């Protein structure tokens, strides 16, 4: 696959997508919660930029709207809500180190390779652009998943969840010129409602286990059930 033969705008898209992937790694290993939220906001902004570039290349007008929606939702509103919640829960200075950061990062690298391995035979070799972009989005989704597994702090898990959404959106926008508008609006609405509910849950978690460390959620076991 010779990337330099692609049209310039597609090359730009690939660069942007690569930075999105890089930010996934940043999110994965970032110990300070506030910085992680900032990294997530940048990731959202980049996805919005990708959407805008796709809209400009393909003359797809409804994508301008999606770009604005993504920017508003993923780069501004959700990070702002998370910011406010961390301040309210007094977690601004909260740091959380991974158990073994090197291993987890290696795992993420392996996931990127795995994504390429999965996607390469699937799409014809002449569609270099699509192949790369789908592989990158899949990698972003899987790294988000990895983050949700290895981070034990509730806010960090939510960041992982939201960055999975970013990966999905990246795939939808760049491989297929965006989903139909009804679906896109529905997905955006679901994400927003999910964020509000996550906020509610942070408060409920703090009230019930006095911390947001979800490793402490261990009352429900297989043979447990003697709850009362």
């Amino acid at each position: 696959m010779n990337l330099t033969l692609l049209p310039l705008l597609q090359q730009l898209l690939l660069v942007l997508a690569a930075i999105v992937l890089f930010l996934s790694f940043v999110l994965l290993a970032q110990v300070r919660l506030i910085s992680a939220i900032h990294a997530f906001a940048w990731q959202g902004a980049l996805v919005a930029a990708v959407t805008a570039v796709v809209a400009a290349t393909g003359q797809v007008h409804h994508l301008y709207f999606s770009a604005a929606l993504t920017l508003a939702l993923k780069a501004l509103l959700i990070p702002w809500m998370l910011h406010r919640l961390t301040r309210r829960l007094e977690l601004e200075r909260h740091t959380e180190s991974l158990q073994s950061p090197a291993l987890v990062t290696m795992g993420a690298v392996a996931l990127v390779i795995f994504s390429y391995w999965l996607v390469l035979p699937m799409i014809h070799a002449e569609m270099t652009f699509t192949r790369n972009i789908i592989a990158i989005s899949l990698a972003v989704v899987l790294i988000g998943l990895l983050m949700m597994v290895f981070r034990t702090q509730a806010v960090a898990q939510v960041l992982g969840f939201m960055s999975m959404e970013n990966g999905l959106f990246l795939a939808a926008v760049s491989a297929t010129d965006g989903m139909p508008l009804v679906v896109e609006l529905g997905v955006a609405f679901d994400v927003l409602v999910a964020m509000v509910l996550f906020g509610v849950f942070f408060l409920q978690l703090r009230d019930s286990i006095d911390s947001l460390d979800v490793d402490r959620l261990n009352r429900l076991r297989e043979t447990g059930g003697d709850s009362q």
Partner: protein
Amino acid sequence: MTPLMLVLLTPLLGALALGLLRRPVVAGWFNLGVSVISLGGALWLGAAVAVTGEVSGTLGAQLFGPSAGLGFRVDAFNVYLVVLTAFVGVTTSIFSRPYMRYVLEIGRIGPRRMRTYHSMYQLFMFTMLLALTTDNLGVMWVAVEGATLATVLLVSLYRTPEAVEAAWKYFILCGVGIALALFGTVLTYFAAQQVIADPAAGLTWSTLYANADGLEPAVMRLAFVFLLVGYGTKVGLVPMHQWLPDAHSEGPTPMSAVLSGLLLNVALYAVVRLKMLVDGSLAETASPHLAGQLLMGFGLVSFLVAGLFLHRQRDIKRMFSYSSIEHMGLMTFAFGLGGPLATFGALLHMLVHSLTKSAIFITVGHAAHIAGTQSIDQIRGLIRTQPAVGWSLLIGVAAIAGFPPFGVFMSEFLLLTATMKSAPWFTLALLSGLAVAFAGLFRHIHPMVYGVPPEGQQPVEANMIPVAVHLSLVLWLGLAIPGFLADWLDRATLLITGAHLL
């Protein structure tokens, strides 16, 4: 379109109104009224489908253009699930009214959370009916995710640490699962764009189904894996089932009844619809039955593992949620097996399992109120304290365990026959799984029903009408499937497998 609007808009508007209604007693009745109207709409829709064979339409076509609006398609396969969903919605709201009033009286929740409860109940019904009736795979995804969002606050309704933990697990696991399903949906859309000219129609199920043979097999194969893992999380397939027993056991009992009886069905419905697409796409390749084989594998593992876990449970609602996983596994296996007989059996099993399981959860709710706990060790002698509850539990468990003459026996018998015909060795696994599950249920049920009741155990005010209705329906389906229903299921079988059974 009119009956469809009635089915969809009633719960949506009902949810909004219930969110504003301040008096819990009125809200209980109002909730029941909304459910009854939805059921009326569903029956009307059923009649329309019976006459015309298929009802379809587009909402908002003027706004977004003819193919970009919200398309609906109701055929023999989903209409019976719509009627079933609306029906269980009514009977559960009959049960929920006095049950939740009791919960309010003993002070487990306040009037504000009662409002959330009623509003979310109807919103949940709306999302499920939307997921069933929509023709757009993307909207279906939005609706299934919406069902998670609507129920997650209900799981944590009691705000005990256990309930919050269960809700968090439910939220995160189903959120992740459903995100993977969205990736599968995007891949499907990508495959569709190579064959379907109109980009806006690329997620419309009927268009995709008509062009299924042109969809790129390599893409669809990967897409189906993501879709199966995603929606399979909501079906409760092992190993993605971790959320299910927690969410069922910690939420209020009416919620367990609708989650177990309806949500799992809707997720399985989504999987089957997608399997139909993938089968069309893979028909010409070297592995035409890949989707079916995946379903059989996941289904069989869920069926066997859940049967074993039944033995280890200490919480009565957890036990029955494992029984749900077991039955969903059986249905998934049957849909994977394919063929008219197995599909017919699986469709019938969806119906009887929903009816029986929601009846059981309603009974369990009363039993837990009698004993004051959900712990199996402390529920004793129900039949002496309150014969109605004891007998219902016994009959319900007999029905779910597959005793003749109940409907579950019928459908399991059909499934076993189909398995014997096309994959004889699996019969052994199925039979031993059924025996293990049977033993698991009865070793726990026996002391709960017949044991010596603790001193001072008092009967509670219980409304057994929904249970009686459900169990008699299951009995009726076991003795004689009415002609119109058999015809209906046969048409659904024709739709899924391309061949008649009857």
